[in-house]
């Protein structure tokens, strides 16, 4: 989505799990392009927040930090639990290889600016702005 200084992402899916996966894919695309990071790296995450919007931002920022500190680039994501205020996930992915996936741009963080998660009968939608 257009934003003067940063980038906004709008994503949707039939379930919250799918929505969170789509948002993850969008974040990765902004950082390194549309890659499929299959690999043997494994990660288990357990996160909490006050509401589902904040949980989505917490999730994306957790992945950003794991990428920056550990070089973990997520591929397959299984949500063991995904509720309004809590998630547990098992992730497999690859160790980041800059030669294979050159950095497009650095994302500082997923922000709370104009953050939205809404759902109708069969679709979950989210709007998130990333600080670049």
């Amino acid at each position, binding site marked *: 989505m257009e934003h003067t200084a940063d980038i906004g992402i709008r994503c949707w899916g039939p379930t919250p799990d799918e929505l969170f996966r789509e948002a993850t894919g969008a974040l990765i695309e902004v950082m390194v392009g549309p890659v499929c990071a299959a690999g043997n790296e494994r990660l288990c995450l357990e996160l909490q927040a006050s509401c589902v919007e904040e949980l989505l931002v917490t999730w994306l920022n957790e992945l950003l930090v794991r990428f920056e500190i550990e070089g973990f680039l997520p591929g397959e994501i299984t949500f063991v639990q995904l509720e309004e205020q809590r998630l547990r996930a098992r992730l497999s992915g690859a160790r980041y290889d800059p030669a294979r996936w050159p950095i*497009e*741009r650095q994302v*500082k963080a997923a*922000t709370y600016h*104009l953050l939205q998660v809404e759902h109708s009968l069969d679709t979950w939608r989210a709007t998130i702005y990333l600080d670049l």
Partner: protein
Amino acid sequence: MSVKVQQIDTCRWRIPREGAMRSEGLIFANAGMIERLQREKALEQVANVATLPGIVGPSLAMPDIHWGYGFPIGGVAAFDAEHGVVSPGGVGYDINCGVRLLRSALSREEIAPRLAELADTLYHNVPAGVGSQRRDLRLTLHEEKQVLRRGAAWAVDAGFGSAEDLEHIEAGGTLPGADPERVSERALARGRSQLGTLGSGNHFLEIQHVDRVFAADAAEALGLYEGQITVSIHTGSRGLGYQVCDDSLHTMLQASRKYGISLPDKQLCCAPVQSPEGEHYLAAMAGAANFAFANRQLITAWVRESFERVLGKGPAELRMGLIYDVCHNIAKLETHLVAGRSRRLCVHRKGATRAFPPGHPETPAAYRQIGQPVLIPGDMGRYSFVLVGTPGAMDETFGSTCHGAGRLLSRHAAKKLVRGRNLVAELAQQGILVRATGRATVAEEIPEAYKDVAEVVEVVEQAGLGRIVARLRPLAVIKG
């Protein structure tokens, strides 16, 4: 939401107080800028900031204002230190992102034959882009905490630069009140390998020449003259600052609920300055700000080394003294005269630069007659400016002015515009060498993506928020 804007004069526009706003908005801009702003959300953001408790005076925006997240970029807001709030969104993720400027005794002609070698050496010696770092700099946790406590002073004691440098840095290169114990382990982990790195995005390292002096008295005091080579460094607190901000936002979202502060945008979450949450944030933020001061100090040392090696000259010959170093993403406790009364305020500058006038005690002794130097980078194809602070800034903007050109095009629009063009070759034809790591960086940072910074500083000078001293043109640009 459409925001009402009333013209006051040629460079001032008011957003009248309405709804939940506790004060009005005041924007410094020309008519063309205001017209462009109507198409994005920055004006709404100025109004949103005015709703926060304890705001003193208007919610301000400088002429480089553009749509940010929470606060607008180019936003300034002061809150009563006793009854007002502090908001991490009013500082941003890149805490103490800032600019420093080095002078030299070199002329443009002198370095012309070695410019490419200088650019390559700087690109090699100063880590730029995601994940790059100097292999010869390894910090222990104890050392990193010292960096957070002492900022540029730590770097000088570690052999990077001189005590004289510290005199020419905002706050002397050490923001008081920093407490590394208030910084999370995760933030420390993100920072440890990133000290002494440029980063990416709009951060840069630039060799420039002074192509025009506008105010001879001030230029002389700053040691600037036409044809002279200067070096600018623009970077901040890297991952450490981003994490301090993110950690604080979690706390502040809860604090806003706890203190009953209603938020028009969650990114504006805040807490009273004098609350455990507010004090915690300010202590952590000061640590991140000190990390940024040390970061720019280390890069300065490597810039000097690079010049010495390539040109085979010593420091005494090169005379690469630090002119000044300013923060443009920061919250500071300052004393200002408000309606004739001296008040302690928490001044947020989000994409705005402090611009203290001549005679101010915080202006370095060497510049006391001319005012605090203000460094305003433009884009990589045109120019940057050096200004000095003025009494007008103290009267109207809590001693603040603009921080840069301000973006005009989104990154997407910029990339679309450059499709099929070889930007690096285009800039080389104009005599500007570019060395960059990120694939998208150069495309998204094209000169056309930014406002003409000359237009921005003209409004600043016209409004009395700064005095233009000199214009610098880029010769070589290093980007992440």
